[in-house]
């Protein structure tokens, strides 16, 4: 009996040793992972399925990336005004442009369909969405806004994507990037840090938590983790308990 256990123990020690040692190797240590990654809300690139969407001022360009070593230009769409951010969810693409938020149906990348434009005065701000709600921050300091004093978070009903409707607006001080999970929206509010709202009732957002002391400009929300980039560093938090957000680490700039 003992004779069987000893080699097993040795084997397991070797195995543990291996996984620990290969720190810089994709094979065993850190992993790039299989599917596409996740961008912050200020992104001008987004991947949806086998397509890469990039924006360039007045154009949306679509590339087929089904072959990882070669991309093919599929189409280019002209949009009237300067585009600042792009976000995709399932078969929809949300564009934050100077003259509003555009929604496109991208189920067929060869035939992108314009669905609607939500006009909020002169915005080129980040947008994130789930199946029924879109969240946009409007910032008066934004470089593409000419004369609008609004600093706010808008919640928009997109259950009918052809007819987006404003549900509620919240005043903010200096809102920038934002992110969502299933029930919370996380808004970077400049030197006020991150404000966290429960949107269970989208017509009345409830501020339930936050992160202060960081001049925050963008977030990524992923599996109860919050990745925050601010003027002073990159910060990671665990928010399994939303009322008690735990700082995991930081890399200061």
């Amino acid at each position: 009996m003992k004779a069987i256990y000893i080699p097993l123990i040795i084997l397991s020690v070797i195995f543990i040793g291996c996984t620990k040692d290969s720190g810089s190797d994709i094979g065993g240590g850190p992993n790039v992972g299989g599917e596409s990654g996740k961008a912050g809300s200020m992104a001008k690139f987004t991947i949806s399925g086998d397509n890469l969407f990039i924006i360039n001022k007045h154009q949306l360009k679509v590339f087929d990336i089904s072959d990882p070593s070669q991309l093919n230009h599929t189409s280019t769409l002209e949009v009237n005004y300067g585009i600042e951010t792009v976000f995709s969810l399932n078969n929809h693409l949300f564009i934050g442009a100077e003259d509003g938020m555009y929604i496109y149906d991208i189920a067929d990348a060869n035939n992108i369909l314009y669905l609607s434009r939500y006009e909020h005065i002169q915005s080129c701000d980040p947008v994130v969405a789930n199946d029924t709600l879109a969240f946009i921050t409007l910032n008066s300091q934004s470089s593409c806004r000419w004369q609008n004093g609004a600093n706010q978070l808008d919640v928009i009903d997109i259950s009918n994507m052809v007819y987006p409707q404003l549900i509620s607006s919240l005043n903010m001080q200096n809102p920038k990037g934002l992110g969502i999970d299933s029930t919370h929206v996380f808004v970077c509010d400049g030197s006020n840090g991150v404000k966290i709202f429960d949107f269970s009732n989208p017509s009345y957002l409830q501020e339930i938590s936050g992160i202060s002391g960081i001049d925050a400009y963008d977030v990524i929300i992923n599996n109860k983790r919050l990745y925050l980039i601010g003027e002073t560093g990159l910060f990671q938090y665990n928010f399994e308990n939303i009322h008690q957000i735990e700082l995991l680490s930081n890399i200061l700039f």
Partner: protein
Amino acid sequence: MRQLLLAIAVFLLFFNGASVTKVDGLKPVYVSPEEAKIIKSLAPRDIENHGKIYIKGDYIFVGEKYQGVHIINNSDPRSPENIGFLQIYGNNDIAIKGQTLYADNLTDLVLIDISDIHHAVEIQRVENVYEAGNQNYPENQAYHTYFECVDPEKGVVVGWVREQLIDPKCFTTY
């Protein structure tokens, strides 16, 4: 008398010094047109002009505006480690699918194989996806910010650094 002369001398020295206009401004960073399109893995460096963030698998990528991306090994989120820098001049955005990183490199869109994160390899370049960016002045600065005039003979402008400029002839007018 001697004291008066000294005082005059000191005054002249001071006055003379003040007549050289040294102002806080921006100086272009040049690289050769060839270097501007070279994608390469470099040693980790400090994050200075931080841009956007992107997460993928065990990695966090932090943009260094117009220079490339910092690579953070985040396999232990309590102790992330800056492990390298990917040089991509003119870069603002990246996206990654599988082991392929897509990035803007000045006017081009490049595909970079990152299966070996320390030895990234360019695998495809699509030229002129973007209109040529502004090479003439620093963007998003306050009105009347001084900068050293751009000399295209010196190469491609891939960034701006803040410096004390002597009598600069150019300033922002937007």
